[in-house]
């Protein structure tokens, strides 16, 4: 498949952050990703859309090696090259923990740890062995500010994260992911468990966040993909059907299959 780079697609100054190259993935005997290729542009929002079971979450979870946690999962071909290192993330000699320190993740359902708001935000810093109280305080504050949560929780940092509302919990999870200064944040349907108002605030936040990080988001909500992403990839049955600039995918898709999905004739 001919891949477009950001420049060719008409977005100026787009630089590659990562490049998925002919990636194959197996859950046991099930071939979940079939020679998938796509670019990830630096400081852009890239969304993955497609019907349930198309492999979009599977692809997302390759980026931070989440599949390594379960037996039977295999990266069976190709790879994901991370820039500027120019290294394949999926190579066996790469330490998944090092990958996860640079590529963080926010999940579908808010999953704050059974700890205080402060300790949730400080979690990845503590995991890296940071002890200095002042440094921790600063990093926690800037992470919570980055997740647009600071004003709501600055007076109650000792309370349990689970006491927050669903939308606040999800922003706490974003703060948790931001605290380590990651290069990429992966979002796996981050708003599907939230009400419309909380969803709007998360979407706004994602658009702001691309100043700092590269964002890859899986979403079931096509309007959401259209609203927040610069690039969109449409996947179906483990294959990459079409990748392009979001406006182009939604207004003038190149493939009939993409058009059918987007216009709701299918899926």
């Amino acid at each position, binding site marked *: 498949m001919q891949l477009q780079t950001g420049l060719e697609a008409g977005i100026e100054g787009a630089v590659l952050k990562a490049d998925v190259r002919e990636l194959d993935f197996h859950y046991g005997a099930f071939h979940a990703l079939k020679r998938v290729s796509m670019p990830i542009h630096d400081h852009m929002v890239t969304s993955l859309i497609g019907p349930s079971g198309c492999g979009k979450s599977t692809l997302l979870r390759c980026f931070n090696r989440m599949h390594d946690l379960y037996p039977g999962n295999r990266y069976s071909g190709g790879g994901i090259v991370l820039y500027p290192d120019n290294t394949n993330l999926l190579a066996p000699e790469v330490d998944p923990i090092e990958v996860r320190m640079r590529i963080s*993740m926010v*999940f579908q359902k808010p999953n704050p*740890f*059974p700890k205080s708001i402060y300790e949730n935000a400080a979690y990845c810093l503590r995991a*890296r062995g940071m002890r200095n109280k002042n440094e921790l305080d600063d990093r926690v504050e800037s992470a919570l500010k980055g997740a647009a949560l600071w004003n709501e929780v600055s007076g109650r940092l000792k309370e349990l994260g689970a006491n927050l509302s669903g939308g606040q919990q999800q922003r706490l999870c974003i703060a*948790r992911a931001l605290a380590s200064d990651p290069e990429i944040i992966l979002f796996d349907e981050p708003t599907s468990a939230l009400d419309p108002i909380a969803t709007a605030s998360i979407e706004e936040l994602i658009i702001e966040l691309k100043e700092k990080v590269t964002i890859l988001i899986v979403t079931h909500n096509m309007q959401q993909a259209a609203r927040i992403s610069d690039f969109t990839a449409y996947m179906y049955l483990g294959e990459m059907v079409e990748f392009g600039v979001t406006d182009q995918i939604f207004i003038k898709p190149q493939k009939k299959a993409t058009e059918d999905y987007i216009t709701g004739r299918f899926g």
Partner: protein
Amino acid sequence: MSASASEPSLSAPIGTGVSDRLSKKASRHVKERIIEALLFSAAAFSVFVTVAIVYVLVKESWIFFQTVPITDFLFDTQWTPLFDDAHYGIMVLLSGTLTSSGVALLVAIPLGTIIALYLSEFAGFKVREIAKPFLELLGGVPTIVYGYFALTFLTPILQKVYPDLPGFNLLSAGLVMGIMIIPYVASLSEDAMRAVPMALREGSYAMGATRLQTALWVVTPAATSGIASAYILGISRAVGETMILAVAAGMQPNLTFNPTEPGATITSNIVQVALGDLPHGSIGYQTIFAAGLTLLLMTLAFNLLGYWLRKRFREVY
């Protein structure tokens, strides 16, 4: 659909004119009632037995406390029901119970927790499937066997380290009791840890945490209520354990918190009195009811503590 003659008119009072097809079926109704009564009586029976036990203990203890003032029972430092100068200080037996339970818990809680963490967070599927039944087998060994094990195997070994250790001692009994309790603590703690949603673990791994960090910082706090319940059950087992102590700890009442001495516990003393020479109905014999009531109140307190802990820490995730 057009209105038919059988359709109830809207103006009819509610509840009148039920058609045959909707009326209550007598046979079904009766059958349900019988089953309900059977289930109720099964539940009521267990409640009745509990109440009856408490009634007997309180009634017999009442007789005892009419002769022996409760202050003597609580504060006297001797337990000599057989002597002419009889003393009934429960503290003596309580010290034996607390010492042996303390030793047992020092073994069972750390080891049980570590085993649970390993099985839940580190062991592969195969290891867990093999190790867990073996672990649970440890809890199924009859306690009399543990008692002999303590007396004839562990005590001689301990005597090589401490030559002054008497043949009957609380230490050996407590250590073996701890081994007996490990499976309870480990198995229940592991269930609690495994019940922690995978989403929490994934959240931790996704932040770059290691397995140990995830296990200690996320899984353990999330499973606190279940782990606390496991500990409480372990304590209740230790406090109520009889046979190991009767066999390996000696039965001399001894006010001591030193595990290297022999001692009687509340339970082992009850065995001794119940099987001994004291005439039925004598005040010495009545001691077993007062001691039994003390034991019951202790385990009740632990159960309430466990209940409170479960409520306090439940569903933090």
